[in-house]
């Protein structure tokens, strides 16, 4: 029982940003069909922007979230105009596009070190109190992060699933021609999606960053899990991403407690997810045949 309680608490608090990051990635994936490797850098930059605003203007962490999210969102839109839109216009193939996004990811990851410097950076926040939840000690800070992530995730979910603009986004994601015919401004909505995805990634990054440290590899380290969550959730929409993301966080925590080694938990989960993808592809292998 203790294990279940611990896994729930640690999984939810420690891995909450994963859900947020996965939502942003899933939005882009559904719109463009693109596995955008450079998304991991949106996460990293969110952490850096937050740290920069926090330390430069001496702002409270929660006041930092808004500018960090917006800046990450703008960078995301910037990558769309600088790279992905021109690439689409040049009819670059799917495979090449994945490699391009890989190149962009590397470029940004190393490029940002020229801007923010090489050393590891930290947020300047007061040391948090510790509360006991279900018998496990949790920092107030992590609890607040969980609440914030939950609120932002649900707000995004509501926005995409219920609002009028959200409807347009979903329309554009499922059928560009149809969306255009029904009077949606594709460019505006596309930019909106890239922006929202960037905001979600950036906020996730800020939460990751404040939880530990800010390093150039911050987003890249999470990227594989973001990718796995979104692929495993498949076409079940944002609800599926939230469920799988949460479950992944809890599973990581539980496996870590079992094996006493966070790294083993990751290896087991990676193997399990890839096996699941393999199993699912066997069942849906119909499509690509003559």
């Amino acid at each position, binding site marked *: 029982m203790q294990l279940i309680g611990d896994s729930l608490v640690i999984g939810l608090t420690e891995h909450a940003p994963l859900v947020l990051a996965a939502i942003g990635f899933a939005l882009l994936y559904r719109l463009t069909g693109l*596995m955008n490797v450079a998304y991991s850098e949106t996460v990293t930059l969110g952490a850096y922007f937050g740290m920069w605003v926090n330390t430069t203007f001496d702002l409270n962490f929660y006041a930092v979230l808004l500018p960090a999210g917006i800046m990450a969102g703008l960078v995301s839109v910037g990558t769309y105009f600088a790279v992905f839109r021109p690439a689409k216009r040049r009819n670059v193939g799917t495979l090449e596009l994945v490699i391009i996004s890989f190149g962009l990811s590397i470029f940004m990851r190393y490029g940002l070190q020229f801007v923010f410097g090489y050393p590891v950076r930290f947020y300047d926040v007061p040391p948090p109190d510790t509360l006991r939840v279900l018998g496990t000690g949790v920092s107030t800070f992590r609890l607040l992060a969980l609440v914030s992530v939950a609120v932002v995730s649900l707000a995004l979910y509501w926005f995409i699933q219920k609002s009028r603009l959200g409807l347009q986004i979903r329309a554009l994601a499922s059928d560009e021609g149809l969306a255009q015919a029904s009077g949606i401004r594709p460019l505006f909505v596309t930019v909106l999606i890239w922006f929202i995805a960037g905001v979600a990634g950036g906020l996730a990054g800020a939460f990751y960053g404040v939880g530990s440290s800010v390093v150039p590899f911050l987003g890249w380290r999470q990227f594989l899990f973001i990718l796995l969550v979104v692929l495993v959730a498949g076409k079940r929409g944002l609800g599926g991403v939230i469920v799988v993301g949460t479950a992944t966080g809890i599973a990581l925590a539980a496996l870590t407690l079992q094996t006493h080694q966070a790294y083993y938990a990751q290896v087991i989960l990676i193997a399990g997810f890839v096996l699941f993808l*393999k199993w699912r592809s066997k069942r849906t292998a119909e499509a690509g045949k003559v």
Partner: protein
Amino acid sequence: MNLDWLDAFLIYGFFTIVVVSGLGLLLHLQLGLARIANFGVVGFFGIGMYSFGVLYVKVDWPFGDPWQFLVCIAAGTLAAGLSGVVVGWLVGDLNEDGVLVGTLGFATAVFILATTEKELTGGAQGMGGLQFPYDVGGVKANELLWLVITAAVVGGIVFYVWRVHRSPYGRLLVAVGSNEPLARSLGKPTFRTKLWLFAVTSAGMGLLGAMYGVMERFLRPTNLGVDITLAAMVALVLGGSARVWGAVVGVVLTVGFFDIIVQNYLPVPVEWYSQALPVMREALFGAALILVLMFRPFGILGDMRRDKLMRSLHGD
């Protein structure tokens, strides 16, 4: 032999060129012919490196060098080949997204295990005890000889790739990359073909990893960063991913430029060597990948020319 004229950095620069060329050539078979984007090159490289290292250092062999060395390096190659079969089985029938996840996940797993298995690998501190299987007098001479041996191995890889282009096997790989369902309908076992492709190319990557480890003499998980995969991919894409010589041309222009020209001959400030230069190198590699694929997707050498090839093989 007096080797004072030869700079140690220069040997290392050329060694890197040779090893990355080999990786790029093997990646060419996957990406250029069969159109499988392997983002986990460093994983196979690392399996070979560490399997060799652990077997060589930790196991009490009843025979000494060079047999111990040869047996271990063969085992490392075999281990990488087997891991290639496993990864190939996992991703062989997945689309680009699945291949990205599978290969990336594999590389991550290898990195993690190299870090956690302290008993075997020394963990993050690393593992020493590797050495050349010979001594021809002095570190520099040994390294130079190792460079020559590695270059010979990569020469063998060039020959293999060159022959593959001129063989029914190469034709099948191109067919799989170009229209897999159609190849299957012609009775070609495309899944098994990919499995064997992964086995052979991964074994080659593992061999190069082991040879790289010998040159490094000290294995650390930081050797297994994404920069290896990146270097092989940039070189291949820049040179021409569908051409035999694409990877070699690309490596000379990318790794060659940074690790030979910039490192040895350009007057860069000394304090740049530790951080600014490596970071600049990776950032520019990333940018090159984007620019080439946008503006010249087939690289410097252009697309493969099977029409010319068929004419030269079989006449008009």
